[in-house]
Structures are given as structure tokens and as C-alpha cells.
């Protein structure tokens, strides 16, 4: 049993309206000193077996084709212990 985390973020050059909205709200709520906010998504995938190379390869494929829109998003895959 293992947990694999896939983090999906908009590519750095792509406009992130949600992140911007959060950034604009922060100082209004008294949270100063934050110059930029980018918002992404995190997927936690529970495996029924070990997180071996084969399993990770499948997850990368899932991330590439389904979890992330690679035209505008990047993703990272990591095993959570």
C-alpha cells in the first residue's frame, strides 16, 4: 500500500486568474508581504500495491493524459511515505 501525490500547476507563463484573485485578497485581509500567488491542484492516489517503477509509470501516464492538461499545466509525481 502506498500513496502517490500528483501536483498539477499551471505553467509559470500561463495566466492564473484564481491565484491573482487570492493575491489581491490577501492584503485586504491583513496578510502583507506576499508578492505572488499561484494556485494548483493536488491529487492523492492510493495504490493497492507498492509504488514501484511500473506503478509510477502508469500514474505518470494518467497524469499526462488525464489529471493535467499539459497544454497549459505541468505536473509532478512523488511517493508519500
Amino acid at each position, binding site marked *: 500500500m502506498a500513496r502517490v501525490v500528483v501536483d498539477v500547476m499551471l505553467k*509559470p*507563463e500561463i*495566466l*492564473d*486568474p484564481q491565484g491573482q484573485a487570492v493575491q489581491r485578497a490577501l492584503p485586504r485581509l491583513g496578510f502583507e508581504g506576499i508578492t505572488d500567488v499561484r494556485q494548483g491542484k493536488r491529487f492523492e492516489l492510493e495504490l493497492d500495491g507498492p509504488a514501484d517503477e511500473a506503478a509510477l509509470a502508469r500514474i505518470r501516464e494518467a497524469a499526462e493524459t488525464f489529471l493535467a492538461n499539459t497544454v497549459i499545466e505541468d505536473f509532478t509525481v512523488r511517493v508519500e511515505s
Partner: protein
Amino acid sequence: MSTPAKPPLDTVAHATGTPEQPQPWAELGLKEDEYTRIREILGRRPTGAELAMYSVMWSEHCSYKSSKVHLKQFGEKAPHSDAMLVGIGENAGVVDIGEGWAVTFKVESHNHPSYVEPYQGAATGVGGIVRDILAMGARPVAVMDSLRFGAADHPDTKRVLPGVVAGIGGYGNCLGLPNIGGETVFDPCYQGNPLVNALCIGVMRHEDIHLAKAAGSGNKVILYGARTGGDGIGGASILASETFDDAKPSKRPSVQVGDPFQEKLLIECTLEIFRENLVTGIQDFGAAGLSCATSELASNGSGGMRVDLDDVPLRDSTLTPEEILMSESQERMCAVVEPDKVDRFLAICEKWDVIATVIGEVTDGDRLEIYYHGEQIVDVPPRSVAHDGPTLNRPLARPGWQDELQADTPDRLERPASAELTRLTLLQLVGSPDQGDKSWITDQYDRYVLGNTVLASPEDSGMIRIDEASGLGVALSLDGNGRYAKLDPYTGAQLALAESYRNVAATGAKPLAVTDCLNFGSPEDPAVMWQFSEACRGLADACQVLGTPVTGGNVSLYNQTGDTAINPTPVVGVLGVIDDVERRTPVAFRTEGSLVYLLGDTRDEFGGSAWAQLAHGHLGGLPPQVDLERERLLAEVLIAGSRDGMIDSAHDLSAGGLAQALVESCLGGGIGARVVVPDTIAAFTFLFSESAGRAIVSVPRSEEVRFTDMCRARSLPAARIGVVDGDALDIQGQFAVSLEELREASASAVKF
């Protein structure tokens, strides 16, 4: 490719001193003679920034270089119309609809971006056309879209269509604009190149019309809206990689991401600025971004303008000056403001949380000068960038296969041999993706927000109320048929106009003006150029007869996959006015016992028909004949019928013929009809032929004499073909289909 040290900024002085430095003009899409001409205009080699500007402004997309020799006809042949307040050439044309009101409307394509990234591509398509309308000083009040995808059962359609629909819905719904109509068509020719044509309509008072110009030395140039990022400048990265080392994020995205909430702020902010009369000129940022906005504003004014790029608010500080000039970041506008009004302008922007920055001013001279880090990087005559781009007379040739295609008439196709087979044909048609119920799509759009929508999909036209007191309203329809246009581009374009015109008249509105989106393949292919020239000629000729001038629109070329062009697809939008929207005519049958009349003549016309495609996968022969005088007459009768309360419902006949129209009128009202096939015509032809210039109306018995007298007096053929009744579509002596069965077939056609 990689240069270790950062080379000096390519200033005007530097360019003058290094005439031999090689430049990536070919990579930027310029032809050799175009590059030579730029050098002649400037008397030296262009700087990197100038090259960026010229390359993008002289591209097909911005300069219309292949199309403008043909588009000229829309002006030259334009029928005189008292309703035209602003003609073709501005951001969008403006039409007088009476009572001091004016509307502006335009359709524009966002085809390629919608294929690469369907959601954002379609969303920014809506955003772009809305800003076009806004720049005329009008409040955007409704949108519409014409969509074309590959085969409905193709796996890639399942990627593209839901994304496009969600993008249009997402952006439009967030803006609070109703989506009142349009069309969705499927054909394998659009598999690798879907068409997303978005239309917006805006409303203003006559006195509020604003035109983009930058007269008045000393006036300030203000950039307002979103920050500038590296959006949509895939092309400019070539310049960037030439100028800088490869360590920076050189791979710029071609995808632009829209932010509808920013656009909503921009709309309210801009309208308030207009209300206080604070601007002398205004321009939206479309393709080519700052390059386009500054050169067009300057060249529409006296010519001189100075801009400081360091003052442009950036989202990404690594952008090069070339990239800043070419960026297509969304939700930005540019205004020219008299100095004493600048403070008030900025205050309004601040109120709406819109970033606004003075980036330059109008000067006495006739040069557009752009500075970066204190150095001059652009010094050009703005007209040469914005308006005096190349004009091409591309070779055109009627394709060799055209005769063969037209000779392959549908006469050889096997028609249903029995009543039962005809019934199955009807069910197949009703359940096809092209003809079936599109609610899966239109339910994702807010159709009634703002509270002025009186007709929306699946009506023949969208209709909105403009004036609450008087009931004044406008109707809009957007139609095209690439299959007809492939068979004969001249007639096909006229058929698109005729259908749109008929759709508007069917609701009771008087057609006034036209906008068009011309989607074609590569202009470098003489066959495509021939299709394009024929379609333009057809459309301009037909507008002349119908008295409806083209007020503006858009050309989209290079729509092809490999060497295979899409079917030539002119999409035509017609705007009509109705004195009182209470008088509108819906599609649906309403009253049992009303009489069904078929208006117009039915011929045996199956070339390019829905039946030929569906039953036989056939495309050949000639499209239906066009009789524009008949279309005019039919429209007059439909409008008079609506105004004088003689008809309960009206529905135009187009793809799928009478059968399809009957089904839609029945399903719309939840009432059946009994229909009699006249002796003079075969049942199959009667039901499925696609002859133009026809409509069905339902007439209350009390109005029958008045209605038929009117048709007779105006010599419009009107045949009583049945009566509204029961819960089935009963083609007497042939077959009957229950509404339940029809509804089931139709409802399952479009689901993703």
C-alpha cells in the same frame, strides 16, 4: 543558436549601424519581398521590435492581405441603407434600430486556438468579440456562436466539443451575457480544424458611438486592464532566442487564458469612462496586442505617437520588448485621453480595480516611436504598419474536381421505397447529430440572464428586448452550410445569407444588416482562393438584392489539415429589428386546430442535403437554387403575419426540409400535426427536399382568409398542408410517428 553574453538592445541607432545583421524574417512568416519593402519604408533594416510589429501586422490574420481585394465588394456593392450609422472598417458596424437606439454586432473566428486548447480557445474567442463591441461604446448584451466539429462519434470530438462548449459557457456566463443562439454542425472535414465563430451584439444610444482614433497632440495614451504576460507569442520567441541566451523560459505558450471577471470589470469601467466622455479614441487589444493597438490608434489619428514600454505593467518581468509588443494577453484596452481628463480616467479605473497606466502620448509628428530603457527601438510611419500592409492578388482557379462533383447528382441515390422506410428515414434524420436536439450544448449557456431574452435556441433566431417601455427588440441568426458551399461557393454563400435572413424574418423581425465570418482553407491554394472569391461575390451580390449591407466581420484562412482544406464555410449573421417583441413568432405549434401552411415552392433538390449525407454519405450535384426576390417576398409575408397577428408559429425550412421543420414545430409545442401530401409531388420529395425560400406557418382558423388573401395578393405560393392536432406527426396515407418516439430520437442525438 545560444549566445553566451546578452547582446546589446537592438535600438534604431544600432539597426542603422548594422545594416547587414541577419534577421529571422522568414521564421516570423514574412516573405522576402515583404522584408525588402519594410527596409525600403524605413530606409534601413528594422530593429527586432519593428520586425516583430511588421511581421504580426502584415500576417494574413491582421492584414487580410489575401482577402481584401475580394472583401472590397462588400463596400462597393453595399446597398444604400438609412440604418447604417457606421459602416464596414471600424471595429464593428453600427446600425440604427430606431427610437434613438443603435446596435453594433460582429462575428469573429477563434478556430485554431480552440483546437489546441478547447476551453481557453473558445473562452478567449468570446472575450475578444465582446471587447470589439465594447470598443464601439456599446454595452454588450448578448452572444451567439456558430460551431463546427468533426464527426460526432470521433474520439477527438469528445475532447474538443465539451471543452469548447464549456469555454463559451464559462466565459459568457461569468460575464452575465445571455447566449441566445447559433448552430452546431458536424462533418468529418472539420476533424482536425474545428470552427468556433463567436458573435456579440451591443447596444447604445446614437450619441454614444465612439471611434478609434488618436488625434490631438499631447493627449495621453493609457493602457488599462490586465497586466501583459507572455501569452500567445509563440512566434516572437524566435526573436527572443536570437537576442537572449537560452536559459530564460524561451518556450512561450501560444495559449491565452481568459479571465471573465477581469473582462466584466473592464466592461463596466469602460462604459463609465464613455459616459463621462473621457476618451478621444479607444481600441481593444486583439491579435497582435500592443503592436496593433498603438499603430491603429496612431494611424487613425494624426500619426504621431510616443510610447514607453518600460511603463507597461508586466506579469512576467523576463519579457523582451519584442514580446511585450506581440503579447496577446487578454482583457486589455488602450485609450487616448486629453491630459486634463487623465486623473478622472485613472480614478474610475481604480474604482473598478482595473490597472491603468499612462504609457505614452500623441505627438505632433507622423511617426510611431517606442522607447525601452530610454532607447528608441521603434520609429515607423504607423500607417505602414496598420493599413499599408501587402495586398496580394493571389492566383485563383476553379478546381478540376468541381465539374465532376457537380455532375455526381443525388439522382442516382436510392430513395426509401415504402412508407415504412420513409418513416425510418425521418427518425434517422431527427436523431442525427446535425438535426437532433442540441440542449446538451445550449443548456450549458445562460440564455436568459439580464432578463431581456425573448427567444433563444432552439428558435429560428435569438431575440432580445432593447427598450422596456416600447418593446423594441432585435433578432439575430447565424447560419452557414459548408456542404452547399463546397458544391457551389457562390450559391452556397447566398444560401447561408438567405437562411439567416429567413430565420430572422420568421420571428417577425425585419432584417437590416449582415456580419460574416468567412472560414476557408489555405489562400496559397488557387482552388481555395477561387472558392473564397466566389463566396464573396455571391454574398455581396445577394446583400445588394436583399438590401442588407455587410457591416463587418472576419476572415479565417488556413483552415485545413495537411493539404486538405475544410469545406468552404461562409457563416452569415443577420440582424433584424422588431417594433414590439410581444409580436414575435415562435417556432412551436401552439393551438390545436390551427392550419399548417407551407409557403414557397418545393422542387426536387437533394444536392448537399442532410438526407444525402445521412443515408448515403453523398455530397454531389448542385445546392438548392436561390431566388432572392422570393426570399424578400417570403420575409415580407412572415413579418406582416407576425405584426398583424395572423400566424401562431413560423419555422424556416432548411437542412432536413419540411420533415425536420414539422418535427421541431411539433416537439416545441408538444402538439402533433396531421399533414396531407399534395397529389402533385412525391411524398419523399415533399418531406425531405431542401428547396430554399420556404417556411411553414400555423394559422388560426379565424385568420385563414385574411392570411391566404395576403399571400395571393403578393403572389406568394401558400399551400394548406395540414392541421395542428393530436400527439403524433401523421403524414396521412404514409405513416405516423408519435411525438414520444420523435422526442426520444432527437434527444439522444447530441450527448457527450
